[in-house]
């Protein structure tokens, strides 16, 4: 029998990014006992990297903004396959969630009359993003972290959950290990919230940290929960491309919000060449109008650089493929040019975009107030994830909840910038509230010792295989998966390449069974990488299979063999669950009919 420490809580939260922390705060406020497990130290989760801001229709900068406009923007951005109920709740509740952060100590940038300042962002009709320079994520995570430490919440730092435990149709716990000793821990709970964030590490070029190994998706899937929308992976248009060691690191959309423009090597602003019909009415058709928009002119339309991320990323890929890219395989993003327009431009840029200035200065030896940056698309965000009920955030397995990036539905086929930070607040709060409610209404379940035994045995297998370095390396399997997905299931997809990817994944799955690790269980990154492989592989497979089924192009999902939107697919979601033969099974499911009042909002704002 495996040895382990035992812990018991009413609500267990996995992940301490924005969604997990917000869920923990809410559950603790409901008076239940709460544990929070995180892979890193508190406050280091990927939320810390969010730059541009949090979207909420507070209307401080433009009073025409309201929840209806935010709802319509989110649905349009998601190409209408979003869970409309989530989009409605999100738009309605985001303002209260942002304002309450201020009561907890957050300090957003201010308007001249002292209220929360809001900035422009892609796909949002009005200035809507509350922000702190370009380090909004840090502000949010620190505010939530500094609240949680005073609450009655047990924090387990540098712990990883390997699998969930079930009692019949319900999740009743989780089995994990601590990094420090490599010892196992059994967490018993009445309700469990997955807030594990993203999947970026499925790909080679990503803005995500090592933590984004799709844990929540793997855990939920193996516990029998359904996934949804897995084909929709957002490639952020602007990641760093040079030097190679920093490729993928995010360059905030805020650069474009402040007037930054995209140019090809000929110096042309290529975004004017292709403005989608759905956005033509609200996009500037000349440089002058675009500039006025970024400077707050309410009568001007937004420049095409601020079109949705999926579209901007594809335009950049087109420029690069057709030979008009920058020297290191990207395009130019220029904010320095604003010196032609405003006095003290260098100071202005440093004040508005301090961490971008710092990042390029330190990592690329480049002064963004003087020279253009080189940027290209980077894997950024999973719109898909664990399927949840819009109101309660419960998955299709009882007692298992999900929130934030690991859950799915709000963003449809493409997420608008700023909507992830509001997502994690709105649905983190809801998940915490309903998990606490579930815990109060249900008795503790039974822990099955056989499940515990199986999980620990599987987790230790890489040590059993140790052959002194001649066997399969977890790093090699991980790298090959990342390269295959980057190459075959990236921004531009075709049937043939995706079949190749599936075949590759099948082989990698076999190899993953045989990976071996050196050393002992103490803080052993090789072992951690071996364990994370299962989550990466199942996620890669789900992405492939869903992308194969969606025979059209929509939002972030672009297929050269089906380059147009097909309205038959506009009314369905792809649902993934474990099939009998061990591979992922995908089915199409019709989207529930939208109530008339929401439909009217969308029609009125088209």
């Amino acid at each position, binding site marked *: 029998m495996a040895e382990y420490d035992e812990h018991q809580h009413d609500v267990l939260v996995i992940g301490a990014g924005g969604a997990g922390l917000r869920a923990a705060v809410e559950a603790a406020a409901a008076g239940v006992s709460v544990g929070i497990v995180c892979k890193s130290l508190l406050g280091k989760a990927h939320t810390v990297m969010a730059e541009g801001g949090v979207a909420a229709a507070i209307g401080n900068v433009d009073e025409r903004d309201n929840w209806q406009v935010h709802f319509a923007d989110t649905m349009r951005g998601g190409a209408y396959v979003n869970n409309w109920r989530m989009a409605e709740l999100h738009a309605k509740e985001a303002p209260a969630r942002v304002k309450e952060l201020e009561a907890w100590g957050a300090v957003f940038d201010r308007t001249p009359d002292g209220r929360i300042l809001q900035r422009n962002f892609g796909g949002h009709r009005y200035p809507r993003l509350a922000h702190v320079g370009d380090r909004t994520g840090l502000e949010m995570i620190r505010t939530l972290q500094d609240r949680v430490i005073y609450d009655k919440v047990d924090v387990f730092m540098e712990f990883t959950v390997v699998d969930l435990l079930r009692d019949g149709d319900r999740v009743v716990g989780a089995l994990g290990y601590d990094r420090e000793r490599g010892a196992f821990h059994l967490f018993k709970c009445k309700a469990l919230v997955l807030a594990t964030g993203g999947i970026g590490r499925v790909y080679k070029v990503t803005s995500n940290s090592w933590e984004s190994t799709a844990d929540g998706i793997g855990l939920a899937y193996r516990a029998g929960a359904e996934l949804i929308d897995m084909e929709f992976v957002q490639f952020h248009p602007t990641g760093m491309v040079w030097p*190679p060691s920093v490729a993928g690191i995010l360059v905030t959309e805020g650069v474009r919000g402040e007037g930054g423009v995209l140019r090809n090597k000929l110096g042309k602003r290529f975004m004017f060449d292709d403005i989608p019909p759905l956005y033509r009415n609200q996009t500037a058709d000349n440089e002058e109008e675009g500039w006025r928009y970024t400077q707050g002119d309410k009568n001007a339309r937004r420049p095409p650089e601020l079109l949705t991320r999926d579209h901007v990323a594809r335009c950049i890929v087109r420029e690069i493929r057709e030979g008009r890219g920058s020297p290191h395989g990207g395009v130019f993003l220029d904010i320095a040019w604003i010196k032609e327009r405003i006095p003290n431009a260098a100071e202005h840029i440093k004040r508005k975009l301090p961490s971008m200035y710092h990042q390029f200065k330190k990592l690329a030896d480049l002064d963004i107030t003087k020279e253009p940056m080189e940027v290209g698309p980077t894997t950024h965000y999973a719109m898909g994830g664990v399927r949840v009920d819009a109101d309660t955030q419960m998955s299709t397995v009882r007692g298992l909840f999900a929130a934030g990036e690991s859950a799915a539905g709000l963003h449809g086929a493409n997420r608008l910038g700023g909507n992830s930070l509001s997502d994690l607040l709105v649905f983190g709060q809801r998940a915490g509230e309903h998990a606490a409610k579930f815990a109060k209404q249900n008795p503790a379940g039974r822990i099955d010792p056989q499940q515990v035994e199986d999980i620990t045995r599987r987790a230790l297998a890489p040590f059993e295989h140790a052959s002194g370095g001649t066997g399969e390396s977890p790093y090699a399997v991980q790298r090959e998966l990342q390269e295959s997905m980057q190459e075959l299931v990236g921004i531009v997809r075709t049937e043939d390449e995706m079949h190749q990817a599936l075949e590759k994944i099948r082989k990698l799955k076999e190899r993953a069974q045989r990976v071996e690790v050196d050393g002992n269980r103490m803080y052993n990154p090789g072992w951690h990488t071996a364990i994370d492989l299962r989550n990466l592989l199942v996620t890669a497979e789900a992405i492939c299979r869903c992308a194969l089924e969606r025979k059209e192009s929509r939002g972030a999902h672009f297929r050269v063999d089906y380059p147009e939107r097909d309205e038959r697919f506009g009314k369905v979601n792809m649902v993934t669950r474990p099939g009998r033969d061990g591979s992922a099974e995908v089915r199409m499911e019709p989207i529930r009919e939208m109530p008339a009042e929401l439909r009217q909002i969308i029609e009125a704002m088209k």
Partner: protein
Amino acid sequence: MSSSATFRIWRGDAKGGEFRDYQAEISEGMVVLDAVHQIQARQANDLAVRWNCKAGKCGSCSAEINGFPRLMCMTRLTDLPLSEVVTIQPLHTFPLLKDLVTDVSWNFRVKKTVKRFTPRPADAADGSWRMAQADVERIQEFRKCIECFLCQDVCHVLRNHRLMDQFAGPRNFVNVANLEMHPLDTQNRLPDLKDRHGIGYCNITKCCTRVCPEEIKITDNAIIPLKERVVDEHYDPVTMVLGKIFSGFRGKATTAAKR
């Protein structure tokens, strides 16, 4: 730039260990963390290193590089003399867990002893407040802190004198400054600063400011103003006499100091 370089990395745990030399291939733009990752993937799968964002935003990968406390992800190899061996060792001030990873949990425990943010009642009916940009900018500097704990590592009160039970350290003073100068906060943390958090031990050598990757002026903007407030409150003879006469006076003096 040469195509390879030698990295001398501390390997071991609380029981003991040694420096080991590794060769890593060097390419353009690499940072120290890239070299450590390459060594980990190719030569030492079990080499323990803490990291996350790799962009200087999370403050996880703190270490001592050639004896200087830095973030590994923001230290470019071109800034180091690669003709010589590059030495990488864990933070000295905190207990070693394994290789480059130390137990920094003490910092989190101390933070909990700081009185929490306590805002004044909302200014507007909708529950919101009004603050001027100029007023928030002062504490936004402190809120940039990424909790890398390099300032704690370098501070001699902790590093050499080991006064962990009497002294909260620069990171925590930055946090207290953030709360004390917060335009909305109503708490008084000065007695704690003096007694529990031992601000008097700081003799403003400014080592913390020098290592801060966020370039926060820790000594000038956080610690010195806090020290002045402590002095004003506790050693100003007029305040002391009046404080004895009017028991409610001290609270008002603190509020005045906040402005």
